[in-house]
């Protein structure tokens, strides 16, 4: 069931109706039932995976709670308060127990994800290794395993919950149905965001009362998301797919246009989908975390990743980057390296953790080497940029550019956009790294002219081009307007007739310029495949 379909609209309408008809204290159950129904309609029997993930997470959390209670019996508060060593002993004892449970839980949930998503990749690489060193003996893989919808998203969300429990950042949810709802909540199952328990749970479990403001805000968000998806993303989709598929037959200028359009398509697609997610959740009064903060206005790659897919970035930062970079082992390694070189010693833990995180971020996007390379390039650019900062500052001083001058900002923003667009070549290159390098070579060395007829052959008619560019320009203006206030707040600042005109115009634009209708099957959301 696509987010931009009549059936989804009906499904959401039914869920909203039931939600507000049921007494407040049972409303979370309506969300759970509809979430499971949504998942079953999308995946059928493969619902078993998300049910198991919820169950494992619940059991682990309860076992952790039990240990927390046990420590209070074994080490009574009056003893630990008086004796510092006893307090330390209790802390260590609990940490050890909780860690054991957390590791088993993570092995189970990430184990499932690994087998389903990465086993073919692992077997293919083992076979390649065997072929190179032992002839052509082949290991048989596990066959074509079906990847359940949203597994990368719900696995990370469930794992984050357990890790937060281990760090005692949250209290365990004792109601298994509520925890299951946290893992399966349907608006965010397709493409995230990856919510934190402390952020999502208050409004998810509350049983929110009907408020016109929630419905209004929800519908605005949905309208905005649908417009982005149908007017821009799906319009550019055909061209991007075709020109990348026929990359050997087109010159570098078409390919340059392809990668620039792909960046914009991806943004319109993913952020549009997230708008629909936030809007749908809001219809129930549930507040879902924002996943974007005007990423194309970033002045560096590091800043871009703080503003694009924010919840994935903060997940990797809090649960992988920080624990690795400040781990005793890496800190000690840094000290040893410092004896040889103080420069490298200071950077050992920081850059090792960065590279690990970005290799994993690449793998999260797909079980292929091109994604790993894409991730590593992001990490390497960040490390190199950090080192080059003094040089940039020196160059700026020499050129007389101030950091906050318009020219300097515009230059940094365009540079970051181009870097990110070029890195996306790896994302587009479905044949692998060789294809990515070939596209890059063509862009750099085989520039040529562009004709409208060739663009049309590639799926972008003159009208499509004009509408896409107008849509992108409008998106740019909206992003500019969002510098200080969200677009919703700005809309609410307008008079009612103005708001009606804007809404009617938006609906008309979607109806006239959107890609939809009989015989047209909307493109899936790109992040759904991850």
């Amino acid at each position: 069931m696509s987010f931009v379909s009549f059936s989804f609209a009906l499904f959401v309408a039914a869920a909203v109706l039931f939600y507000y008809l049921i007494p407040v204290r049972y409303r979370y159950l309506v969300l759970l039932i509809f979430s499971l129904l949504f998942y079953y309609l999308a995946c059928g029997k493969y619902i078993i995976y998300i049910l198991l993930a919820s169950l494992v997470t619940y059991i682990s959390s309860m076992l952790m709670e039990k240990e927390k209670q046990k420590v209070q019996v074994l080490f009574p508060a009056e003893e630990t308060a008086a004796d510092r060593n006893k307090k330390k002993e209790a802390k260590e004892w609990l940490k050890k127990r909780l860690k054991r449970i957390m590791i088993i839980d993570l092995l189970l949930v990430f184990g499932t994800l690994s087998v389903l998503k990465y086993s073919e990749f692992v077997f293919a690489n083992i076979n390649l290794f065997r072929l190179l060193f032992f002839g052509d003996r082949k290991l048989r893989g596990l066959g074509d395993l079906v990847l359940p919808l949203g597994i990368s998203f719900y696995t990370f969300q469930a794992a984050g919950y357990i890790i937060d429990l281990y760090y005692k950042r949250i209290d365990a949810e004792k109601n298994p149905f509520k925890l299951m709802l946290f893992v399966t909540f349907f608006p965010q199952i397709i493409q995230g965001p990856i919510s934190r328990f402390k952020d999502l749970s208050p409004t998810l479990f509350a049983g929110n009362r009907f408020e016109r403001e929630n419905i209004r805000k929800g519908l605005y968000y949905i309208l905005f998301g649908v417009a982005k998806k149908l007017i821009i993303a799906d319009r550019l989709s055909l061209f991007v797919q075709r020109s990348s598929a026929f990359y050997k037959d087109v010159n570098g200028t078409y390919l340059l246009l392809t990668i620039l359009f792909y960046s914009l398509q991806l943004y319109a697609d993913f952020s549009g989908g997230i708008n629909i997610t936030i809007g749908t959740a809001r219809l129930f009064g549930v507040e879902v975390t924002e996943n974007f903060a005007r990423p194309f206005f970033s002045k560096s790659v590091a800043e871009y990743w703080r503003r694009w897919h924010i919840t994935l970035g903060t997940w990797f930062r809090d649960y992988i980057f920080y624990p690795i970079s400040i781990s005793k082992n890496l800190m000690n390694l840094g000290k040893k390296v410092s004896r040889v070189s103080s420069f490298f010693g200071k950077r050992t833990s920081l850059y090792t953790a960065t590279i690990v995180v970005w290799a994993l971020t690449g793998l999260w996007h797909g079980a292929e080497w091109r994604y790993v390379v894409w991730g590593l390039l992001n990490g390497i650019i960040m490390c190199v940029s950090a080192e080059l900062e003094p040089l940039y500052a020196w160059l700026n001083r020499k050129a007389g550019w101030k950091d906050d001058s318009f020219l300097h900002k515009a230059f940094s923003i365009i540079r970051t956009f181009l870097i990110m667009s070029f890195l996306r070549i790896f994302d587009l290159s479905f044949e692998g790294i060789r294809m990515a390098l070939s596209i890059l070579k063509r862009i750099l060395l085989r520039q040529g002219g562009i004709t409208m007829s060739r663009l049309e052959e590639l799926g972008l008619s003159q009208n499509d081009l004009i509408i896409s560019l107008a849509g992108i320009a409008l998106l740019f203006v909206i992003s500019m307007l969002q510098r200080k206030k969200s677009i919703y707040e700005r809309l609410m600042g307008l008079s009612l007739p103005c708001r009606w005109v804007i809404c009617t115009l938006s609906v008309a634009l979607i109806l006239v310029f959107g890609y939809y209708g009989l015989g047209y099957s909307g493109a899936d959301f790109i992040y759904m495949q991850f």
Partner: protein
Amino acid sequence: MDELIDILKGIHPEVDYETEEALIDSRIFDSFDIVTLVGQLTEEYDIEIGPEDLLPENFNSAKSIYELVCRLMEE
């Protein structure tokens, strides 16, 4: 406290640490800065800072960082 301010100045010299109370919330310190700071605090004060301590409220101001260091030294 003076020692701590010196360490912080080494990371971001332009910040007024006497008044700034949103080092993390205002994105003055990013994750690279935090890891650099943790490395220096660990070495300088012989403390162990764990991922559980890496909360915005512990790093938003020089005062909160100082309090964290004192708490960990006591432990």
